[in-house]
């Protein structure tokens, strides 16, 4: 049942001298939903690009189950409006037959747009189209980069609901990046809080109590997620470098917080 699809161990990516992501360990198995959260510029997108193989690792190891199909939903489609393209044609470019494509469009609720131009879609419709496109390829692993971007708040909830139901039906693994903390906490199995390194990881209910989470998102957010606040072992400066907190009085806190 819990067949591992992808594993990262000690993974790091650096561009020239800048370490974007370092020392990440994670495993995603069939049926898992792993959500990566973290501030802007924390390396979230770089991390999933490494997982899907678009970005090479500069440290550590990436293992993917041989022969798995990955469905990728990019953050945004920078569409050249100079390229005329219908939804139908865009779906067919997966190389799958139209029946599978149409079914995927139906699953994500945008089948009625098949004949429309992709330049006429709203943000939410585009996200659903991109998910449908990933689905048509019958992925073992679905990777989504901020799937709810540009989607209104009601749409966001139903989008996450959709992702969860797809996971249930297809028994695929899901890795996604998200900023919508409330929704993430409700819709995910495993959370990684990333700020260049893994600040903390675990189940949603644990993570919101983790000092690493509080450090990244602030006490206010953590509190609003009905969590108690506690102090952290380190801070980040503006470049994201780790600065140890002056008083080390919270060393005794039991947490999965990665030591530095």
């Amino acid at each position, binding site marked *: 049942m819990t067949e591992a699809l992808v594993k990262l161990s000690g993974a790091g990516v650096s561009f020239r001298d800048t370490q974007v992501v370092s020392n990440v360990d994670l495993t995603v198995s069939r049926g898992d939903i792993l959500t990566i959260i973290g501030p802007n510029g924390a390396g979230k997108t770089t991390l999933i690009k490494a997982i899907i193989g678009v970005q090479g690792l500069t440290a550590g190891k990436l293992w993917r189950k041989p022969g798995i199909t990955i469905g990728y939903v990019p953050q945004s489609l*920078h569409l050249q409006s100079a390229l005329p393209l219908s939804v139908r044609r865009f779906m067919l470019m997966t190389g799958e037959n139209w029946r599978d494509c149409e079914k995927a469009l139906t699953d994500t609720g945008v089948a009625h747009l098949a004949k429309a131009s992709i330049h006429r879609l709203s943000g939410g419709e585009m996200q659903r189209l991109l998910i449908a*496109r990933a689905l048509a390829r019958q992925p073992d692993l679905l990777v989504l980069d901020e799937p709810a971007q540009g989607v209104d708040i009601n749409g966001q909830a139903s989008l996450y609901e959709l992702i969860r139901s797809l996971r249930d039906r297809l028994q695929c693994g899901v890795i996604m990046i998200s900023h919508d903390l409330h929704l993430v906490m409700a819709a995910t199995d495993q959370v990684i809080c990333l700020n260049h390194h893994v600040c903390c990881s675990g189940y949603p209910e644990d993570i919101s109590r983790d000092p690493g989470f509080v450090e990244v998102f602030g006490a206010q957010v953590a509190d609003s997620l009905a969590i108690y606040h506690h102090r952290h072992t380190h801070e980040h400066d503006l470049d994201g470098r780790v600065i140890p907190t002056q008083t080390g009085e919270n060393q005794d806190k039991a947490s999965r917080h990665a030591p530095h």
Partner: protein
Amino acid sequence: MLLIDQILGDFFWRALIGGLGVALVAGPLGCFVVWRRMAYFGDTLAHSALLGVAFGFLLQLPLNLTIAATCIVIALALVVLSRNQSLATDTLLGILAHSSLAVGLVALSFMPDVRVDLNAYLFGDLLAMRQSDLIWIYGGAAIVLAMLFGLWRGLLMSTIHEELAKVEGIPVERLRLVLMLMFSLVIAVAMKIVGVLLITALLIIPAATARRLARSPEQMVAWAMVIGMIAVTGGLSASWHFNSPAGPSIVVAAFALFTLVYSLLRPQRS
């Protein structure tokens, strides 16, 4: 046979047949230039063609060959240099475009035994088209069109979204190189028609005009071919009647078509 000989024996018909052949490949490649925003890139390659001309005279090799080879080298240099991004790509392109043009001009001036009609290289010399040029044009066009046909889905997908294409197993980097190779070939043959300074126009104006008429990528390619061919025919006829330079006349005809289509047709809902 007699009729063909007669047609090929006439410089106007040779020019027309050659021009139509170039329009045929410039259509689809021009679409990629427009889709991938490579107009400045095409310009740079075209300018470097003059350096290829200089090499051709220097090494006593066929000009088509040295032009294509120089374009390929410049294209590869661009790929390597743009990876090492300390300068913006457009700055880099500007430097290479004008430096290669200038080096080409200077090199040609150092060859006293070579009597070069610079105008012919800068603005085209369509009416001096020989039968061997026609073989180059149609040979090159056949190769490029066959490659485009065979690699169509991969090329189109990597144009729409590189990362999606990569995840779907399309060899994006290799296809980019293939596309540059095709550009180099087309520039080598198109130079004869419109010259280094106007090649980009022949690539992008028909494609941009086709955008208004098309609802799918393939329709856009087909329209770009048709519009390019109309522009070549119209431009050459005008040059015949008004004794205007052939290359610029073709570009003027293409621009007239562009203006006509954009002022008559509203944007497509696609």
